[in-house]
């Protein structure tokens, strides 16, 4: 197979998509720390957040290297404004209640698990190595989220309602994760990345299986809201960044 040529910018942008997904969701989950419904859940959510921030660090460092302008993960995480972020809209959604958080986590981890499994075979060594480690973490995230989808779906009337409401908030952001565009076609052609649309059937089967266990029905999905991959985000991301970036922006150049 002839390897297609990928521009530096394309590789950078692709790595930013991967890294920003993990970073933004990690930041969101870390908001739970100390406030979860039980100590056990506090530990679990912190664990997932930690994994995601670890992945983000590796992926953004790789993005910085690809870019070749001397920016590392910190520079990229704390030095870009909202329109330069490339995460999907799902991960920037507010935590809401625990049902909303778990719905988001299940949808995202299902996507990310399918994605990372493919990327372990990436022709880009850095991507392959990072994803080989990350996929194990993601498998655990997915298991945790699936367990809770079942528990809440098949728990009490209230928990089912809250979980359903949590999914209702998020369905409109599912489509974006599986949308192909010029960049994903280019990275797929170069065997570095994968076409998101090809991950959809794995996602759908898992969704069906877990919803079946939880006694939930998958509704007809609403129109997709998209834009995150091009930097057109919801109103939530700007507020998240204001908090996250405050100290590095207040003390430019300082080392911590």
């Amino acid at each position: 197979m002839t390897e297609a040529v990928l521009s530096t910018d394309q590789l950078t942008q692709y790595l930013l998509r991967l890294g920003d997904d993990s970073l933004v969701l990690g930041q969101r989950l870390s908001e739970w720390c100390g406030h979860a419904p039980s100590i056990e859940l506090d530990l679990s959510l912190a664990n997932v957040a930690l994994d995601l921030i670890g992945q983000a660090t590796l992926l953004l460092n790789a993005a910085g290297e690809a870019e070749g302008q001397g920016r590392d993960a910190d520079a990229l995480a704390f030095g870009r404004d909202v329109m330069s972020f490339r995460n999907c809209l799902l991960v920037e959604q507010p935590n809401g209640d625990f049902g909303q958080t778990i719905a988001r986590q299940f949808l995202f981890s299902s996507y990310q698990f399918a994605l990372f499994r493919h990327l372990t075979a990436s022709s880009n060594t850095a991507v392959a190595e990072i994803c080989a480690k990350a996929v194990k973490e993601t498998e655990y995230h997915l298991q945790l989220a699936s367990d809770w989808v079942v528990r809440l779906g098949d728990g009490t009337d209230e928990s089912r309602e809250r979980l359903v409401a949590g999914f209702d908030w998020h369905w409109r952001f599912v489509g974006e994760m599986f949308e192909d565009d010029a960049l994903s076609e280019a990275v797929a052609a170069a065997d570095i990345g994968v076409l998101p649309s090809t991950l959809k059937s794995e996602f759908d089967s898992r969704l069906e299986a877990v919803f079946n266990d939880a006694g939930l029905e998958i509704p007809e999905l609403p129109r997709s809201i998209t834009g995150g991959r091009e930097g057109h985000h919801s109103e939530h991301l700007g507020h998240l960044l204001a908090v996250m970036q405050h100290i590095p922006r207040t003390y430019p150049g300082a080392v911590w």
Partner: protein
Amino acid sequence: AALVDAFEARVAADEFIEPKDWMPEAYRKTLIRQISQHAHSEIVGMLPEGNWITRAPSLRRKAVLLAKVQDEGGHGLYLYCAAETLGVGRDELIEDLHSGKAKYSTIFNYPTLTWADIGAIGWLVDGAAIMNQVPLQRTSYGPYARAMIRVCKEESFHQRQGYEIMMALMDGTEAQKAMAQDALNRWWWPSLMMFGPPDDNSPNTAQSMRWRIKRETNDQLRQRFVDATVPQAEAIDLRVPDDALAWNEERGHYDFGEIDWEEFYSVIRGEGPVARERMQARRKAWDEGAWVRDAANAYAAKAAARKEAA
């Protein structure tokens, strides 16, 4: 009385008391109070540091802090489990915390104002905690002693991380140095208070020492903390905010100034600067999480019933 004598003899011989063993009711109650207070402190203690996770100044610091706060939750968990071996439920203990009946360490009622406070907490608060906890690895109640062994291992790690944050700040810009010094100024005295009232005003100490629930007095531990910490401050050019501080060659210890015990007792009474915020946050998490805990119980019951039926 024979039971009491046998119990006291075992304690005196440094044997561990285990959950199934007979123990005096006062011993049990003192332990429950002490262990649950300790557990509550771990859980409430997640809040001041948790306040900075979303604003940590680098990804590495964010991950380290998140892991640290997570460890504290873990410690809370071990300790609640240890308390449960004494026949009291976790929910009951938590209700006591939320009603204000149970106490937690006064130190967590001070706010974390800048990133340097995260360094100061790790260095001073975890440092003081270790001084308190190391002897408890040999406390007379087995489950408590074993919990403390795990706790101590992690705390000393946290203490080093906190000091490392302070080192980085003192190695940084003028603004960073000022931040670090200000944090030490604010956390120093509350840290000294963590060892509790002076020995001559600590009525339970004697009994607790005899039962080996405590193994050193408040003032002994406090002195050890000062002796260990002052050189660390000096090593990175931080000034301990105590004009009376001086090395006493004769005692082989640092002399230090008078603690403001009025402040200490005010904070004990719930008048700490952010005591309301702490309790509000804990109650909110607990109340808003009730439906999740209920759902997990309901699901577990259904699953068990299904298994039974199958």
